């Protein structure tokens, strides 16, 4: 039995048209479609789409308010991308609207597709050639990593702290509940007093606060992080300035000028990018510069892409080898890297070039003249998966909100079960809540739970 999945099929960013695809068994797909799309006298409440025909329809919320309007195409199995029944909606590509449509589909019973899941299903249903197996595996791997990075970014700062505090509360509550169930002879029966009820109410209050803030979007970052790094005075800040079109970084020819991180938000053809300029990496005795280098290293670990900038004009026989060595020191597993060999204008007879290696891609360009910059912006877009199935910040945020929605439902049911005296059913709801929250905070196994019980209570006859 397969569940019905939904995803935004167009790249993240602000394109003109946005496509949302829902794929699954016929019955669920049709029932979702009936609720998702507006019913009018002209379009009565029945599923009447002919496969591969376009229809103009409105997407509405639970109160029949219009979220977006656009074209709907139905693909009947097996003649579709995934080989399942697919409903495709082409709407106005803005991220907020797309997110709202996605949310509505989830509300109606679809599940947010895992990264690469559409392609996975297509492959498993023989819609994609066997030769492509590795490409699909790569897609799943890379988009999962990208999703994980987006998730980490959207979990930075205050939001993360609150989510983890929430998780601690849930663990505590489960520790009390499960101890009461598994150790009835140990004087730890919290289900029969009000302790568990009080903890549950507190947990629900905390969750309500977090959901409220998360919905307002104030705590979630957007865009991919591109960190610029490299030896001092290679032109890192100049590159940042060029890309942002602003003189936000102080540029001098004194090595070590940039000490703190500089951040600039730019948009490359609709792709939101946070460019972060770091201190040039070198051994330094100066305290301020050392701190800058430390921060640079942290930024590198959280990057979606790393741009390594070097001065290509400092060329001699061993120059490139030295630069390559430095680049390899900076490289972090699974974070794509672009080597920008700068100062093409000072090099003899060189044209802008792009050369894709296994572990990095090398671009020769000149920040000063702008020659070859478009090679760089294209490569950033490509590495961001901008031309493939998108897994941007909005999707990361949607995943988190979706998980929090489910936690909330489970907690409400838990409260109901507790009130009717069914402690074991409350425990089941709490387990499901923890599973949903675990999608954000990481898995919490039954053995972890037992560990928490044994460290909280003295148990053992």
């Amino acid at each position, binding site marked *: *039995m*397969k*569940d019905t999945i939904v995803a935004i099929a167009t790249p993240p960013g602000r394109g003109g048209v946005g496509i949302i695809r829902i794929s699954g068994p016929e019955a669920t797909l049709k029932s979702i479609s009936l609720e998702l799309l507006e019913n009018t006298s002209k379009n009565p409440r029945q599923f009447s789409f002919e496969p591969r025909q376009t229809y103009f329809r409105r997407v509405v919320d639970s109160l029949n308010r219009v979220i977006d309007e656009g074209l709907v195409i139905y693909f009947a199995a097996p003649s579709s991308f995934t080989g399942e029944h697919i409903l495709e909606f082409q709407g106005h590509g803005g991220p907020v609207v797309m997110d709202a449509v996605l949310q509505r589909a989830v509300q109606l019973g679809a599940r947010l597709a*895992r*990264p*690469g*899941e559409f392609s*996975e299903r297509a*492959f*498993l249903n023989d819609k994609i050639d*066997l030769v492509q*197996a*590795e490409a*699909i*595996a*790569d897609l*799943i*791997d890379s988009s*999962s990593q990208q999703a994980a990075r987006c998730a980490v970014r959207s979990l930075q700062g205050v939001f993360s702290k609150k989510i983890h505090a929430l998780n601690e509360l849930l663990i505590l509550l489960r520790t009390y509940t*499960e101890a*009461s*169930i*598994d*150790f*009835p*002879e*140990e*004087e730890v029966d919290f*289900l*029969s007093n009000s302790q568990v009820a009080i903890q549950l109410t507190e947990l629900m209050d905390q969750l309500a606060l977090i959901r409220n803030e998360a919905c307002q979007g104030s705590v979630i970052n957007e865009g991919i992080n591109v960190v610029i790094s490299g030896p001092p005075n290679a032109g890192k800040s100049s590159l940042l300035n060029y890309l942002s079109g602003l003189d936000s970084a102080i540029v001098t020819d004194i090595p070590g000028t940039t000490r703190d991180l500089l951040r600039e938000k730019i948009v490359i053809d609709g792709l939101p990018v946070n460019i972060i300029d770091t201190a040039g990496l070198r051994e330094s005795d100066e305290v301020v510069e050392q701190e800058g280098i430390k921060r640079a290293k942290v930024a590198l670990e959280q990057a979606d892409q790393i741009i390594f900038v070097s001065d290509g004009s400092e060329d001699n026989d061993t120059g490139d080898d030295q630069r390559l060595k430095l680049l390899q020191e900076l490289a972090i597993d*699974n974070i794509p890297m672009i080597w920008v060999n700068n100062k093409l204008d000072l090099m003899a007879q060189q044209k802008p070039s792009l050369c894709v290696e296994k572990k990095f891609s090398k671009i020769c360009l000149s920040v000063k003249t702008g020659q070859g910059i478009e090679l760089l912006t294209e490569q950033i877009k490509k590495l961001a998966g901008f031309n493939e199935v998108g897994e941007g910040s909005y999707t990361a945020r949607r995943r988190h909100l979706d998980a929090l929605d489910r936690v909330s439902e489970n907690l409400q049911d838990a409260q109901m079960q507790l009130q*009717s*005296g*069914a*402690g*074991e*059913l409350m*425990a*089941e709801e709490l*387990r499901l809540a923890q599973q949903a929250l675990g999608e954000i905070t990481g*898995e919490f*196994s*039954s*053995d972890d*739970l*037992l*560990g928490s019980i*044994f460290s909280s209570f*003295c*148990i*053992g*006859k």
Partner: protein
Amino acid sequence: MNFDKQYDVIVVGGGHAGTEAALAAARMGCDTLLLTHNIETLGQMSCNPAIGGIGKTHLVKEIDALGGVMGIATDHAGIQFRILNSRKGPAVRATRAQADRQLYRAFIRQTIENQPNLSIFQQSADDFIIENNRIEGVVTQMGLRFAARTVVMTTGTFLGGVIHIGLDNYQGGRAGDPASNALSKRLRELPFNIDRLKTGTPPRIDGKSVDFSVLEEQPGDTPCPVMSYVGKPQDHPQQVSCYITHTNAKTHQIIREGLDRSPMYTGVIEGVGPRYCPSIEDKVMRFADKDSHQIFVEPEGLTTHELYPNGISTSLPFDVQLDLVRSMQGFENAHITRPGYAIEYDYFDPQGLKNSLETKTVENLYFAGQINGTTGYEEAAAQGLLAGINAALQVKGKESWTPRRDEAYLGVLVDDLITLGTQEPYRMFTSRAEYRLLLRQDNADIRLTEVGRQLGLVDDHRWKTFQVKQEAVEQEKQRLLDTWVQPESEQGKAAATILGQPLRHEYTLHDLLKRPQMDYDKIRLMGGEVNIDDPEVLQQVETQVKYQGYIARQEEEIARLIKHQQTALPKTFDYQQVKGLSNEVRQKLELVRPETLGQASRISGVTPAAVSILLIHLKKINALKASA
């Protein structure tokens, strides 16, 4: 010399795992030999004289549904029965029994001696006969060679066992029994991962020296519950009470002062002990703010005065044991009959086992019980039963059988062990079972009797009893669905009073019983007809009705996951060939070598993306194979 007969199955060890293994194999028609170092201790309860507990009882009920002996033996030896969590929901209720050690042993021995196809031989096993990574038999202490097609090892804590009392220690498998050192040495030569665990037991007390008048009495439940699905209260011997006393500030003072001679606190013991069964010295040190601990005083039997003070497991020196026991109320003049001790022993990393409990490295050799890092009679017996079944299936040339996690606690137990391994003696808890609401003590028969019958484990009497109950349950469920209650009828008004709100329209009894305020007693109260006398049947129907929504939800999840569970990963799967897996995931998969995709997904750190990538790779290699 060679023994003049080849056996289908040889079981080494006569504890709870060994006896269930031998009985299961013999019931399935295999020529079986039970090899034990001492026939007198068959079915011995080495630790506390009790069977069951939350999670553990669930295992006993499953063993029973599969025709095992533990449940029936408990009914014939149980001297106090109680239902734990009786005021909580049916999924987490558990019947627990104090057992008379002698009666229990006697019942087990009688069952074994009367089992067709099963022989016993007393002699300790010292060596194996292994040819081409396949076990061919066992060699005993005096050099007698037994040939066998399969061997089940259930040697408990006897492998390399070392007993500690204070700073003194000596080799032993259990107080009064020798350790199996030759076998331990032999096993260490084979390619298994071996480590040490530790467990402990309290000093035993002479009941004549205890003042019961100052202790809190804990009688058994009335009506008296039974353990087996075919058990009757009439099977029980005379019933007695347990008692409760407490440690106090003085006890804790004595313990703290004795720590300098504790083998655990001076680093003599290296094995890891269970977190849920700490020694009294551990409890006092780790929970220093607690000034008293509850101690359950359990009778060892009807024909002995010996008591088992459950809760003061200790390896402190004897003089400290004596002082700490005598510091408790009612125990001021207590006489210790046997000192408490800690025991360290070898166990084998269960990640080296298939889910049939056959070792991955030596064909036809099965491990079950404490040797796999578990603790508890119930956990041991459940594994023994499964190993016995699978050894017999192997002999018959049939596929192995193991219940899934959603079918039995036995499935959870085995899957946890082989997938996650264990760092402490593994004990069953209901919180380990994600399908807890499905795996209840009241429905182990519904879950397993049929498969037990197919395997040849369930006799006619049990099968008939099961069918009668099943039919009654189904009929009653149908009756509830077919019986309507009108809002204006007498019954409708009575129902409204119970529910605290009027009925808006007609309802079936099924709908009404679903409500939290409603049960069978209330249905009788509102004048509803109930024609069934068997409380088991009514309880079963009520539980199924009340849990319906949750059961449906869990069954949906199971249906979604079952495909992965049935997708086999080839034994020789080359994870290096799978592009897109991280090194961490690859290493974990190579370590565990899961048998199915479902098992792979439960290894910690194996992400859904990794599972997808494995699935795609499998499809590719299968397709290539098909086209080749």
